[in-house]
């Protein structure tokens, strides 16, 4: 993953200039990501082909054989497997992810219709996760070994141990059923976003807090921190401007990667709140055995995830010149 990028002493090459080694490493990284993508696409394709005869799903079990042969020909299923595979790959790279069996619509259109809802939820959740997780991690790192540290760390571990959808259900009981402060279910207004976003934030918040603690406690032990303190720089400024700036990269990485996971992995949270996002769409597709749609969502998830991985690498090389 992104941590595998080698660091080398900066003095050995001209500053800020791309050289052969840099290009080779970047090339290898892109090749590795493309290989991952190809594996995912192939798995999605194979699963699609193993899922049985789609003509039975479309026409029903009683349809005459001639009709099926006809439909198979129309869908291109009578061609050699390798031709179908190449055609499928071509479709993926031209944005054509096939058609849903249950909605009779292009899968791409449906994914794009649902995406804004999921984006809202993920943006809200990640914002909360960063706003709570980072200070919690910094607090734990600054007071390493104290009760503050233990409380913050346990809280973070608790966030990784709780089934998020259950946490969401309990929020509904407390704030929607008992107290009646906030709506549960449906979407639209900012008030509708509060509970789902809070639920969504729990897992990434815990991860961010744990990582921030680890990364900050390493940074705070560096000699330049002692030197900054000795120069009489205000403690808070030392923590945020000197230590946090250096500890930031792994945190940024996990934020971007978690966003990728949440974009397609928020099935249970969306289910609890009947949130009309991608996760609900995936669930509907599974329940109706609409395999082309499941496949399209898998492909979409894999694509965004690989792109976000690349984004992390790019940010990494911009922020930290040693990686270049």
């Amino acid at each position, binding site marked *: 993953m992104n941590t595998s990028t080698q660091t080398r002493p900066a003095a050995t090459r001209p500053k800020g200039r791309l050289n052969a080694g840099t290009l080779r490493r970047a090339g290898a990284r892109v090749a590795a990501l493309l290989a991952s993508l190809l594996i995912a696409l192939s798995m999605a394709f194979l699963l699609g082909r193993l899922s049985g005869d789609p003509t039975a799903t479309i026409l029903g079990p009683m349809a005459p054989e001639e009709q099926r042969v006809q439909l198979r020909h129309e869908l291109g299923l009578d061609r050699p497997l390798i031709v179908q595979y190449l055609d499928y790959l071509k479709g993926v790279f031209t944005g054509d992810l096939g058609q849903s069996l249950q909605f009779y619509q292009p899968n791409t259109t449906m994914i794009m219709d649902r995406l804004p809802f999921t984006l809202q939820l993920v943006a809200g959740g990640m914002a909360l996760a960063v706003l709570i997780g980072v200070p919690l991690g910094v607090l734990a790192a600054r007071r390493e070994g104290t009760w503050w540290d233990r409380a913050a760390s346990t809280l973070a571990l608790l966030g990784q141990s709780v089934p998020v959808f259950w946490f969401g259900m309990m929020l509904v009981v407390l704030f929607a059923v008992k107290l009646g402060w906030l709506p549960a279910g449906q979407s639209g207004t900012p008030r509708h976003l509060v509970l789902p976003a809070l639920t969504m934030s729990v897992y990434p918040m815990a991860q961010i807090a744990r*990582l921030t603690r680890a990364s900050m406690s390493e940074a705070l032990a560096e000699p330049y921190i002692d030197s900054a303190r000795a120069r009489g720089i205000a403690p808070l400024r030392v923590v945020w401007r000197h230590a946090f700036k250096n500890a930031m990269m792994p945190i940024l990485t996990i934020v971007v990667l978690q966003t990728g996971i949440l974009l397609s992995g928020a099935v249970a949270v969306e289910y609890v709140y009947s949130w009309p996002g991608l996760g609900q769409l995936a669930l509907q597709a599974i329940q109706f055995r609409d395999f082309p749609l499941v496949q399209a969502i898998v492909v979409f998830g894999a694509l965004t995830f690989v792109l976000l*991985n690349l984004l992390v690498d790019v940010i990494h090389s911009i922020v930290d010149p040693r990686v270049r």
Partner: protein
Amino acid sequence: MTQLELETTTGDGTAPATPPRRRRRRRTSVFWLALPLAAAAILVFVLPLTGLLPEAGQNLDATRRPPGFLAGGAWSHPLGTDKLGQDVLRQFVTAGRITIVIGLVGAVVAIGPGTLLGVLAGYFRGWVDRVISVLIDAQLALPFILIALAIISNRGSSLPVLFLVLALTGWAVCARVTRSATLAIRERQFVLGLRAAGASETRIVFRHVLPNLAGTIVALGTLQVGTAILIESALSFLGLGVVPPMISWGSLLASGQDELSQAWWIAFFPGLAITLLVLLVNLLGDALLTHHDPRKRRR
């Protein structure tokens, strides 16, 4: 995914030994974490045999009774009843057995292939390592919960499919950690000595490298139990995990979801149990891992 910090685990054994006093404290903490876990497991497996649990079966005269400690509840149903008047405690205990078994088996099916591939990659290097590393990277660079959903939508939900999903989602983290640990072990003197003495590669791998990894593997397996329980409960909650009549804590949560406004306790206790169980398992796994990771032990 809770093990993100394990990325750079090394087992080079060059770290200074822990002072005896601190090591004893770690042992104690492992003991105190394992104790409640063992107690919970025994309780869940033994309680149904004692005949102390309320009778099974429906009772339409006593539906949605609150737990015994709340107003309107009765101690004949300590955790209340559901919409059919079935005892919640009894379901809770039955489901707990399934959840614990799935967690344990789910960890084994992920750790087994993960360890094997990691050790092979780390020991033999070369093209074996390259192929396995590409697979590890691919698995870690993809949102595999989607692939899991695709498999389930394809094969339908059943226990074998559930274990397949748990294996697929869990092997890579374990493979990565065991690979880097093996890389360190193979450079150590005793491996060189064994090779010089003419021991076969298979013998070195299985009789000497693997035993040296045992502690790390146990720790990884412990953490994997927590992950497996969380994945299982999410899938069962969505109706994609265990199949009725089998119930797990995840499927109890699903049945409690429609009752949230009238009988919140049906969903409350299984969720609380999952949280506490996974928290204890994670704490235990972390403690065990620190024990076997010299880099972390120093701190």
